[in-house]
């Protein structure tokens, strides 16, 4: 090998001196700056690409809950929502609706006070917070006749004054709660309301 020979020959320039020093160093020492920089760049690349993908997927969906405690209200998109209440319909109230046996009908009411401009929202979803965390859709269309067919079951995009959203949910008897109502306001996505309910 020429290494011993190089040590006995005086370098003719600073560049040659630098090259001789580099040849004598080990691989790890040679790359003591580039390896950490590479690690940082890899992590940054993963973060940027992953963050972009995450943002693209979730920005248009109801993915960031604004939790409202039971009995409380919140303002979102210039509109005041709540307090949300839940009422279990008894046998007399449900007789004409013909729900199947081993089920219960839950009616959720959410007072809405629109702001300067009315907003739209997706259909509310009832969610269990414990156990399997099941979700149920608005049952207005599945029952023979809605008990609240003169009340809106979703936001009114052209409302100018206060109104109430009244939504029936058909639940299995083993759904004991506690429950929350997820309400996605179109103008505020990805934030959405999660209203805790008291039965």
């Amino acid at each position, binding site marked *: 090998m020429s290494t011993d020979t190089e040590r006995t020959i005086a370098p003719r320039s600073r560049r040659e001196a630098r090259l001789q020093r580099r040849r004598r160093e080990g691989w790890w020492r040679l790359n003591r700056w580039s390896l950490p920089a590479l690690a940082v760049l890899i992590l940054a690349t993963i973060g940027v690409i992953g963050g972009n993908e995450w943002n693209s997927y979730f920005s248009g969906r109801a993915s960031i809950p604004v939790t409202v405690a039971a009995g409380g209200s919140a303002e979102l998109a210039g509109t005041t929502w709540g307090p949300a209440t839940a009422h279990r319909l008894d046998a007399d109230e449900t007789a004409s609706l013909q729900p*199947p046996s081993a089920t219960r009908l839950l009616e959720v009411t959410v007072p809405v006070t629109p702001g300067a401009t009315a907003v739209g929202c997706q259909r509310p979803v009832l969610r269990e917070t414990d156990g399997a965390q099941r979700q149920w859709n608005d049952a207005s269309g599945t029952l023979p006749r809605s008990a609240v067919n003169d009340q809106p079951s979703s936001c009114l995009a052209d409302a100018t004054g206060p109104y109430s959203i009244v939504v029936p949910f058909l639940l299995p008897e083993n759904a004991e709660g506690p429950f929350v109502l997820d309400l996605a306001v179109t103008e505020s996505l990805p934030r959405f309301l999660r209203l805790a309910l008291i039965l």
Partner: protein
Amino acid sequence: MSAVRPGRRRRDWSLAVLLLIAAWLLAFVTPAEDAATAPFVVSAQPGEEAAGRNISATVTGIRAAETLSGGWAAAGVWLIVDLEVASVLSEQGVLLGHATLQVADRSYRASERPPSLFRQTLAAGIPQSGSLAFELPDAAFAGTAVLRLGLLEAETRLDSLLEVPLDLAGVAPEAELPLQPTRWATP
């Protein structure tokens, strides 16, 4: 270069042959290419509930007919599968979208023509009863079949897929039969 001793050469060749054999054996235990995205199969017998991630179903009976009530005719024979089905966790966009019958090497999708449970919206925790109808050739009734139920019609990867074996040999076709109306299983 120094000469390689004969003993070392034999050892190297033996090691190479062993590695080749090991590579050949490895091919047998390597999963198939689509194994990483295969559905999670949940099997059950007729009369037993099969419960997956977000779908549960119980086959309550199978019947066969030349014609379905309502004038639904087929070139072959109608196989009617009566069942109860529900979703488990959620209802948002959940329906019985995948309903196929595997007979030998052929797969038949449930017919969308007569009103049935096919593509029916499911309720979480609340079973609905009804029927699925399959148009089958006469030869299909000679053996067994496997009923497969899932949520998405064309996509079964990485989600539950219910499988129920059905004995078609013991089903004698009648002239005309109705499908069970789709309704709550416990009205």
